[in-house]
């Protein structure tokens, strides 16, 4: 599902530029709140970690140009400022009236399930690459993920599972002389 929201004129006098919006996107106020918390945690976290991560430095490093903590402290303060701006928007939001039109959102949970499955497969593939080796892990990954993407032709999947890992092996190890991860299989 693709949502195209004609929200604004990018430049005055020019046609409306459709801003692609990802499906399942959260409401603006919730996003602002999450980002404000994240910005506070990031900015505050960096300031709190300064003494342990940069050899006994602290927020006072912001006044010392030569200190290695000068730039991180400056960045952290900037992040706190961004958090403040986001928090202000959460407290005093602009009222957005949205008119919902037709929707054909047929399978929202299924979509998330599919992307979750691919995410898990990619993670497992990342582990297997170093356990059984790049080539066999790639064969397994292609066979499993092609089905999750909805492709069911057995011969097509089989051909891809042979061709791509072989091509990658030939390209990297044969042509570019770059060793790929090996494991107990290959």
């Amino acid at each position, binding site marked *: *599902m693709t*949502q*195209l*929201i*004609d*929200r604004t004129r*990018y*430049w005055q*006098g*020019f*046609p409306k530029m459709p801003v*692609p919006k990802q499906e*399942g*996107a*959260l409401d603006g106020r919730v996003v602002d709140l*999450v980002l404000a918390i994240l*910005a506070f945690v*990031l900015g505050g976290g960096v300031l709190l970690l300064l003494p342990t*991560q*940069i050899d006994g430095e602290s927020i006072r490093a912001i006044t010392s*140009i*030569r200190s*290695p903590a000068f*730039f*991180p402290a400056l*960045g952290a303060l*900037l*992040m706190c400022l*961004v958090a403040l701006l*986001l928090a202000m928007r959460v407290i005093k939001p602009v009222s*957005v*009236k949205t*008119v919902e*039109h037709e929707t*054909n*959102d047929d399978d929202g949970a299924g*979509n*998330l399930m*599919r*992307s979750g*499955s*691919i995410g898990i497969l*990619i993670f497992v*593939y990342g582990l297997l690459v170093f356990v059984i080796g*790049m080539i066999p892990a*790639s064969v397994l990954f292609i066979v499993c*993920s*092609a089905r*999750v*993407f*909805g*492709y*069911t032709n057995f011969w097509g*999947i089989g051909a*891809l599972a042979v061709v*791509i890992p072989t091509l990658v092996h030939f*390209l*990297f190890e044969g042509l*570019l002389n*770059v060793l790929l991860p090996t494991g107990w299989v290959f």
Partner: protein
Amino acid sequence: MFTVITIVAAGTGLLAGIFVGALPGLTATMAVAVLAPFTFFIDVTIGIPFLLGVYKGAIYGGSIPAITINTPGTAASAATAIDGHALARRGRIRLALETSLFASVLADLLSTIVLIMVAAPLASIAIRFGPPEFVLLYLFALTMIAGVSGDDFVKGLFSAVAGLLLAVIGLDPMSGYQRFTFGVTELMGGISLVPLLIGMFALSEILIQAEKGRRTQETVAGHGGKGLSWRQARALIPVSLRSSVVGTGLGALPGLGAEIACWISYGLAKRRSKRPQRFGKGSLAGISAAEAGNNAVVPAALIPMMVFGIPGDTITAVLLGAFMAHDLMPGPLLFERSPVLIYSFFAVLILTNILLIAFGLFAIRHMRHITRIPPGLLYPAVTVLCFAGAFSVNNSSFDVVIMLAGGLIGYGMRKIDLPIPPLVIALLLASGLENALRQSLMLSGGTLDIFYTRPIALTLMLLLGASVSMLIWRQWNLRKSRSRPTKRVIQ
């Protein structure tokens, strides 16, 4: 420097770029990011021309699915789909594709000429820049990128500052102290850029595409009808030239990439047209304007990257990483240190333009069918290439971890409409900004007057002030427009 292998590499890159650009869901940034590691192990005269070819080919290739199946291959071709697909539905698919090719080649050629004429003189001016001027230039670039990457300046700012914070991981450039390495040896060299980019642009895209699943495409059947005649081509020259100027101007500014140039060129063409009612119904001027606008950006975006070391968009950010991997440090000194190499690259850009005519005509005849490749075959193959590419950069398993983390963060950022380009470009510019800022303050004894007492710095300060004011004004207008009822179209 300029050998047959260079030409073959540029041509192969161009063909690969058109192929990737023509596949819906594979973006130009993704193509350059995934293919960049392959070039690190080959000679610079082969690797960089290959990547330049991929960049150029992918931007053009995006127009093929935009016209044939009404699905832009890249975001830069979104405006092309309006008139291109309308014309294709009327049975004139070949005319639409040839118009797109004609405008792309013309715009690309003009923009390349501007690049060749402007880059070296600008570099001779930039060589006079000191640390304060560079601080202001970096801040100007970051402000523009944060401001125009999405539709929310504060979110862009969040992304840019997050990029600056990520960049402090590693060793302090002046004292050599460890910063935020958490005892991990692999982090001492900082966050590895290319694996992070592969994760943020390619893996996150794969996750987003996984959500979409299988879908039917609105394909246009038929032989394609007649092509573009000389009379029609001549009539399209003025609109293509105007859009090329727009694309070149916007491309040379940081942050304003091909995605924005295509819409502004299209809008301008419609406003200046004697028959604006034809736009949206298959107007050749509409296709020309959109395609000339986005293709003119490609060479122009190389101006800030080569002259100042500031990438204009995410693709040039990846290219900057590739230049650095080949020990070419973009900046004013690049033209002094490697003039032959740089002018060889310019020659490659002209050459790929000629090749684009031949490859484009080939693509029009044969490549429109590749839009039918099922995602179930495409994305698993791309994922394998991502892993191989990320690992090969430093032969390090930690880079694979960075890529996976980048993929997860990129996916999350896309889900909440947080722009990725400011983070990536801030990460790239942070080191230069930190050095220039600390050097400036040391020169001035800790006072800020160094930023407005030097003539070039003062000019840049005024430019920065103007861009910040413009962005605040734009944000104000956006908030006002958001408070009005908004029509939401869900397809």
